[in-house]
């Protein structure tokens, strides 16, 4: 089956190896006989709800974020409609911040967001940098870990009752205090974890692919055939150990 991916602003938001995430999705789809078709959606180019099974927004620096903020805000309604129709969305770091209501940067300037996730972000004076480990339960009773690296000045505050992506085992997470990391609304996920995220967390790559396939077929997310993930497991275990040994915290 053809899985259609819309990659938002790949020229601007690509600071932490976001193309690694796309490569993992493409290969893991192909190994199951599916084909990932990736379109770039740039500034001024519309998001057409229903056209993409998965949308991806990567990370950028303040300068790049400022260059795309107005545009992503203008795409907000289309993004919300795409999500309502069941498209999967993954946003990492800067992209995560831009899916919220707004982002106030270092100079106090407020950048508008897409208003897709129930959160807001304020740039703090101390960057939160280091290895991170989370536990997540995206499906009831199925607990997994996510290992990655975070590097952000923004402190993201979820609205009361909003669901985080996971709970921090080691590292800062959204704000260094709440113990929450990321945000999830249905098939829409935002997170600070890069590394990139997907190569060392293949279960999560497969979860996204299954959600995208569900959007494509209009049915339930399929169970994907398991792959030989020995290297992935080793990379995950090294990255988890790093987080446990040297994950960031405010002391």
């Amino acid at each position: 089956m053809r899985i259609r991916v819309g990659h938002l602003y790949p020229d601007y938001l690509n600071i932490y190896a976001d193309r690694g995430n796309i490569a993992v999705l493409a290969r893991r789809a192909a190994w199951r006989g599916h084909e990932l078709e990736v379109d770039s959606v740039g500034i001024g180019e519309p998001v057409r709800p229903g056209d993409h099974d998965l949308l991806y927004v990567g990370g950028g620096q303040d300068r790049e974020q400022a260059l795309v903020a107005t545009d992503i805000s203008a795409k907000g309604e289309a993004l919300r409609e795409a999500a309502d129709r069941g498209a999967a969305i993954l946003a990492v770091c800067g992209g995560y911040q831009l899916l919220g209501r707004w982002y106030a940067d270092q100079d106090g300037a407020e950048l508008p967001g897409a208003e897709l996730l129930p959160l807001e972000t304020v740039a703090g004076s101390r960057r939160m940098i280091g290895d991170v480990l989370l536990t997540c339960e995206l499906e009831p009773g199925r607990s997994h870990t996510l290992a990655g690296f975070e590097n952000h000045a923004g402190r993201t505050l979820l609205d009361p009752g909003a669901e985080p992506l996971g709970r921090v085992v080691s590292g800062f997470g959204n704000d260094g205090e709440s113990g929450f990391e990321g945000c999830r609304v249905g098939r829409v996920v935002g997170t600070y974890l890069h590394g990139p995220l997907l190569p060392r967390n293949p279960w999560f790559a497969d979860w996204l692919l299954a959600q995208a396939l569900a959007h494509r077929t209009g049915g339930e997310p399929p169970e994907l055939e398991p792959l030989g993930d020995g290297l992935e497991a080793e990379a995950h275990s090294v990255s988890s150990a790093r987080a446990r040994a040297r994950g960031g915290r405010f002391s």
Partner: protein
Amino acid sequence: MSATNGKTTTAAMVAEILEDNVRLAHNSSGANLLSGVASTLLSAHDAELGLFEVDEAALPEVARQVRPRAVSLGNLFRDQLDRYGELELVAKRWRGAVEELGDETVLIVNGDDPQVGDLGRDRRRSVVFGLDDPRHAAPGLQHAADSKWCLRCGTPYEYAAAYVGHLGDYRCPACGHARPPLDVSAQSIELDGLDAVSFELVDEEGPMPVRLRLPGLYNVYNALAAATLARELGASREEVREGLERFTAAFGRFERLRMGDRTVLMLLVKNPAGANEVVRTLVAGGAPKLAVITLNDGIGDGRDVSWIWDVDFEPLLERLERVVASGDRAAELALRCKYAGFEGGIEVVPDLARALDRGLQLTEPGGELFVIPTYTAMLGLRRIVTDRGFARPYWERAA
């Protein structure tokens, strides 16, 4: 001398040019923080001139304390974002450092880097260098290109030629912000495989042919920076040419080490821009079938290893038949190869000594083993080679 890439090589080239005539205090082992500069000065008893490569983040403080005669700034690429934060923050600190320099300080900048070239614009004494040979332009900006947007207005620059990453001959189509005129340039560049590159160094006195015993366009940048700095410090054109032509690799950078009847070619990689140039040079010069690639994630390497996904390894992987992945993050490196669709064999051998031995075992007698390490892995590998009696430790080399 500061830059994301090339500061060790550039400073070593300057030393090669100057040291016959001037007693130098030079931090040649790469200790480039404030403490490294201080300890170099403490141990340099009768030095006449301080020559320091300086860490990008340490530049403002070092410049404040040593009040340099000349400052050379080479390039800014994304590098160790876990340590420096955003590239933009480093650029901002450099702008502050340049504003604080006295009028008597000569500022030398690489005009091909938009952020760096702009620093020389309003100074009384500045010298701008860059490449001028569009035959060597890359087909387009690389994936990891930084500083793609106009400093003034945010419009994407248009490049008449992009040479290395975002370094090149750029112009903003909206507001006209463009590469400054070059005072010193390299023209008629001829790449000669893995062994050499020759070019004409052109300044106000006209062209002068130079042949470097190092490969790659990025070393032409290093040579231009070194030549310009050495000239400002009083070297003659002939001394510059002779020094550059005598120069062989700095520590771990295209350094050849003999190990019995085999040679190890050590190619340090630290960030996407530098690694891309290593890949490009290897592919142009006849890529090997085997490489030992080592990825560590210490402070000196960058704790965040995501940068390996920004490197365009693919042209090299297409030619390799086998990769020995090593270092603390060997598995991550193996994943980088796997998801690039690498069809050859991947061996994961985290231990550096065992990986080196495996590589040597797979290399024919008389052959050359290509080893591509990150910084602390390079130090570790070099120590192994030294311990076995095949290379002098760097402190002897530096002396």
